[in-house]
């Protein structure tokens, strides 16, 4: 049986690797997840006959196993199927947290179990403790990230979680958890009190780490916790001698780390900057006051300007996602293309709440890839655009990032929307963006504000363009 299981795990590892490889190309991406899915099903099925389980054969445990899989699976399935596409980032966060929690649970069972027949070696104990700590941090941190992105009331005000000496307290909690972990590992203590305290410290550290971080930085944080969970899974895989867990966990750990670095780079911030310095503490003082006035425009007038433009660049942001406006926007673009205009979509790397968030939504609406451009590809083209239409994007088009050294977002690469001949901004209201700062673009002479829900405004634009015949 051992050979069969190891063979299946080996196959699973290959399916995961090929699946991820396929997921890295748009045309094969969908088959990639299916391949990886087969791997998971195979590995799960053979694990029912795992020698480490059959050696202790216990009907009660099998029954519990099936019940747990049924409950966890059904809840997660229902959640994943029912949430709107806009809520995907927080769903990733919560499922990631579950993985971290599971890794921590494995460690807890291993540490509590009576190993007197075969005492655990020190390397196993150290790995178990390290995985437990990382898993617990990933669990509580991901739950907080979920709460923030879901905009739950408790998590809404980042500032209330910021206090003097926060980093010292966090460091103290982390230090205490590490010391306690070492004590548990070195003595192989099975004291329930020590182990409980150890897990509580780990959970507290994860939550404390994520609580003061603003929602705009959450993608980087989720990606980091994703890498953490991968690492925790690999460590617990080492403890259990499970090669599938080691390989899958490490692949996620390394790819997740790289993805985190790439995201942070796109925001021109280092990962430590995201984690340890809060927005409030950034910048050298008050941001420059924005002068000028906001100039509103009604959709019919906006439609006229749009209809007679030869080149239109669409800049989608989180507001488009919230309003589910992507279908209407693409419908409008098709009308413009029929009228002979050139239409392009410009995607900022961190537009929305995750890299690629906008691309997913545009793909959902049926926008072809060849109309969608990355920031570097299209930034030179804004001066030639007759109209740049900003849909619910704010910080990623704020010129302060380029020219106001005191602004908290100074230095972040932005889309040069302000260089376009005319700018239209669809916005729900006059409020500030996720970073909480004013946007000089909205006050510029060539900018018009079209207030309203993005989907309704887009419908108004479509009507306006159609009326022109």
């Amino acid at each position: 049986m051992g050979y069969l299981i190891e063979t299946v795990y080996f196959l699973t590892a290959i399916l995961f690797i090929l699946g991820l490889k396929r997921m890295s190309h748009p045309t094969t991406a969908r088959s990639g997840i299916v391949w990886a899915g087969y791997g998971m099903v195979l590995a799960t099925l053979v694990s029912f006959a795992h020698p480490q389980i059959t050696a202790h054969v216990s009907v009660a445990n099998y029954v519990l196993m099936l019940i747990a899989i049924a409950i966890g699976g059904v809840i997660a399935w229902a959640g994943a199927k029912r949430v709107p596409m806009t809520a995907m980032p927080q769903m990733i966060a919560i499922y990631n947290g579950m993985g971290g929690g599971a890794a921590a649970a494995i460690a807890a069972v291993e540490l509590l179990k009576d190993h007197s027949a075969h005492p655990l070696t020190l390397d196993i104990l150290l790995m178990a403790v390290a995985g437990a700590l990382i898993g617990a941090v990933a669990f509580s941190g991901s739950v907080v990230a979920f709460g923030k992105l879901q905009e739950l009331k408790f998590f809404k005000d980042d500032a209330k979680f910021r206090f003097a000496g926060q980093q010292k307290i966090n460091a103290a909690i982390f230090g205490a958890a590490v010391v306690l972990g070492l004590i548990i590992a070195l003595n192989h203590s099975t004291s329930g009190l020590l182990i409980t305290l150890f897990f509580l410290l780990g959970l507290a550290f994860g939550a404390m780490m994520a609580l003061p971080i603003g929602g705009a930085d959450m993608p980087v944080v989720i990606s980091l916790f994703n890498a953490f969970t991968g690492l925790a899974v690999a460590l617990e895989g080492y403890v259990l001698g499970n090669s599938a867990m080691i390989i899958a966990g490490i692949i996620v750990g390394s790819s997740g780390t790289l993805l985190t670095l790439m995201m942070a780079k796109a925001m021109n911030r280092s990962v430590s900057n995201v984690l340890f310095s809060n927005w409030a503490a950034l910048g050298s003082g008050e941001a420059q006051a924005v002068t000028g006035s906001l100039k509103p425009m009604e959709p019919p007038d906006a439609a006229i300007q749009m209809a007679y433009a030869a080149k239109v660049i669409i800049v989608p942001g989180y507001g488009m996602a919230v309003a589910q406006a992507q279908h209407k926007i693409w419908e409008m673009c098709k009308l413009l293309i029929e009228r002979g205009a050139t239409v392009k979509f410009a995607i900022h790397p961190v537009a929305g709440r995750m890299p690629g968030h906008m691309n997913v939504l545009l793909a959902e609406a049926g926008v072809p890839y060849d109309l969608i451009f990355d920031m570097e590809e299209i930034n030179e083209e804004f001066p030639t655009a007759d109209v740049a239409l900003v849909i619910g994007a704010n910080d990623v088009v704020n010129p302060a990032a380029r020219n106001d050294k005191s602004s908290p977002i100074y230095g972040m690469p932005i889309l040069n929307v302000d260089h376009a001949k005319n700018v239209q901004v669809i916005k729900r209201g006059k409020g500030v963006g996720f970073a909480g700062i004013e946007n000089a673009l909205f006050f510029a002479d060539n900018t018009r504000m079209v207030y309203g829900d993005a989907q309704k405004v887009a419908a108004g634009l479509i009507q306006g363009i159609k009326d022109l015949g």
Partner: protein
Amino acid sequence: MEAVVAFFSPIYILMLAAILGYEIISRVPVILHTPLMSGTNFVHGIVLVGAMVALGQASTPLEQAIGFLGVLLGAGNAVGGYFVTERMLEMFKSSKAKGN
């Protein structure tokens, strides 16, 4: 010597898998970053297998309770991760003919 080999072989696995993970991600277009993060999130759902082993070996009610929680969370990670990723990637399917 055998003990040395036994000690080093997981380290080699770790190293090669780490390089592989890095390589897979480094060639991904930006448009697939979110689905791929979700995909890797699904892959670490393999923790379910470990949680099953942990529960299977449990001999006290406390161990059973923690193991039960582990399997429940692991199953949630695997199943939820799969369907979220699948839903995102489903959208790329219709655009297959457009090349790229």
